[in-house]
């Protein structure tokens, strides 16, 4: 397994609290063990308090510029929330981009208050499909809830990413990273989430 482009530009995005930074680290560490140079630039503003967050990953055998991805230059977008997929497509999308989205909305405050409307599932799904060369969607939040913890929907998405075979990482690699990163009890839940995500797209 190798990467399709070198450097490979990837965006991992979501809403503050969904854990995009955690999965970008897990992925980064797994790739480093495969001797890839990985750099991750996080943009999170007031993330903890409901803002949009994203990590720009650059994966390469040779170059390790530690900076943002140029406008319209992402190869892969992994998104924990559908509106955020669209936001990142606006910034980094192009006709060749591949997207993988957890299609469970997290409503912005204006939607919660009734002052704005969240786009309909069909409309948003259609836009993301049209703007991606290929798009995968799954209800990672639903899968995580079945496992009893909405918090692991990020790791469900990581499992799904492994299943797409877009990156040179296998389930075993991510298994190892999870075991290294969590205390045993939490590792167990996250391993289940990883596998559930993998099976959802396998």
């Amino acid at each position, binding site marked *: 397994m190798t990467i399709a482009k070198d450097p490979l530009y990837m965006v991992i995005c979501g809403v503050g609290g969904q854990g995009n930074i955690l999965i970008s680290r897990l992925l980064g560490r797994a790739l*480093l063990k495969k001797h890839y140079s990985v750099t991750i630039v996080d943009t999170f503003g007031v993330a903890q308090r409901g803002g949009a967050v994203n990590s720009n990953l650059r994966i390469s055998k040779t170059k390790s510029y530690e*900076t943002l991805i140029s406008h319209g230059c992402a190869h892969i977008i992994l998104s924990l929330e559908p509106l955020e997929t669209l936001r990142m497509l606006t910034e980094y999308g192009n006709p060749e981009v591949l997207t993988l989205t957890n299609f469970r909305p997290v409503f912005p405050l*204006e939607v*919660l208050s009734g002052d704005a409307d969240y786009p309909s599932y069909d409309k948003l799904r259609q836009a993301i499909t049209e703007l991606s060369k290929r798009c995968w969607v799954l209800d990672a939040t639903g899968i995580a809830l079945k496992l009893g913890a909405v918090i692991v929907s990020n790791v469900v998405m990581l499992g799904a990413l492994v299943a797409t075979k877009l990156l040179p990482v296998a389930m075993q690699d991510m298994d190892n990273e999870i075991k290294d990163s969590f205390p045993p009890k939490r590792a167990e839940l996250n391993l289940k989430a990883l596998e559930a995500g993998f099976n959802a797209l396998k």
Partner: protein
Amino acid sequence: MSKLSEDASGSYRLMLGNEAIARGILESGAQFCSGYPGTPSSEIIGSLTQVAKEMGIYVEWSINEKVAVEAAAAASFTGLRSVATMKNAGVNVASDFLQHFNLSGVGGNGGGMVVVAADDPNAWYSGDEEDSRWLARSAGVPLLVPDSVQEAKDMIKGAFEISETFKVYCLFCSYTRLAHRTGVVKLGKLPHPKKVASNITELITNEYPWILERLDEAFERLDKIQEAFESSPFNWYKGPDNPELMIICCGNGSPCAFEAIDFLKLQDSLGVLKLGTVWPIPRRLVEKYLARTKQVIVLEETDPFLESYVKELVADSDALAGKVKVYGRNSGHIKRWGELTPDAVSKALSKILKKEYPTRERVYAQKVENASKQMLIERVGAWCPGCPHRASFWAIKEALRKTGRNGFVINDIGCYSMDIVKTGYNITKILHSMGAGVGVGCGLGQLDRFGFKQPFISVCGDSTFFHSSIPAIINAIYNKSNMIMIVLDNAITAMTGFQPHPGTGFNAVGDAAPIVDIANFCRSLGCKVAVRDPFNIKDTIKKIIEFIKDETGVRVLILRRSCELVRMRRERKKPYKIWVDAGKCKGEKCRYCTSTFKCPGLAFNKETKKVEIVEEICTGCGVCVDICPPKAIMKEETA
């Protein structure tokens, strides 16, 4: 074993910029580290606190940046390596000391001192995007700026060596895009320093009259440092011998330059002179490369610090004057404020070289623009569900409304600043730097004599109280200012990531610490003090109204309630089960809870036309029960 303290010399690890700086501090054998939290600097001290005990070093969260640099300097005076960290705004607080102790000869006894300042181009997390590099120029101290995570670690070591060689503290400037980027770092050896502090036997000062003798020395020292910087490994050039355009850059300018060069495929015509030693500037090195080209762009964050100097150099040189054109922020090729991005740099390079800037494929660009126009919704930050500040500001708002007379809040720096965004209540009329809430209040509290009758309430958080509000309160007491101050005491430094402070009962490394009680402290000064729980909304409103009507002396109300994020982590359960009685909810006609109270745990359902609880994020604080006009929100204690 924690990552930061593993020896593993020679192996590669993925590290956050701030972790790499912390690792550099450990690899340098520093024994004393202090700082005040401030994004984007906080994780440096934060990660050192995790390993302080096993590494046998001292790490503290100081009450403010000035005390942090003073405390660190003390260690250096005794021959121990020390570090103080802060964000850009903190440099202002510390600079009274930093401007003074530049001539003291610190570091000469092997106790080098490094001051880490983290800038915030674009002001992502700050009140402004102040450029800390100017301190180096005004204080005449050496300045290093790293361009990568690896270099951040290595450069800390270099900074200590410079400090000790030239007997002066070394300024090290980080920035948001370094602090919060993650990259591959090759670990170095981890010493376990056991150095013993030495006695202080000589006068350490540069106070008058000593300063007059020291100033010549200081300028000579800068000349010597410049000489050393001419051959520093932190400066290098990559590119053709005679580039069509020379890029001179530091910090984030460097990765942005390389990304833009790749994007525009200009590897053969552009050269990059990257400077890591930024002050004093290695003049001869820069001149040498300037002679190789006819045009230069300077890429740096945020001010045209190098750019102005490069222009000066060109103007001063017979060989270069009139022959080299200098572009950058001053020429308008880079916006006059804001961070550098690959896009901004690509556009600037295209413009100078008169090349077409490659834009996104037209049809795609149109489609994506249409979709985002139709569907994208901004995500504005807000107080978390269950945040005590929402309840506190609600009470203040209601008290001001009930007393009439256009009362307002003088706000301060912390999560409570979010009153000014659209998810807040917008009762703030003045908001500036740390501690300014009470300071400005002192002044307004004197203006009754000139006819100022508007009620006002100064607020500050608990950490801000210790950081810089205390002198202002003493001023208010001494000068008999009539004012109300509300301390929003959530028992942690929440905004920057839950650091402890003197009111929390524990210290940076988790040991029990004496509690400095804010209420008793204020009482001892002669303030009228009351303590309330902001979740008890009615009682809180009543007390604030009482204080407004009192109109004499310094009235301090402490609104005490733990940060909800901290409480939830500790207790892992909701105190109340909350639900909406759909029969009582007035829905569309009311929406008071979602549009006026604005807690994200409440959602208006457009189909049922009723409000619902967002179970995933509702923390069960129960405050909404008390503000719902038709009493439709219900609560029940959880088991």
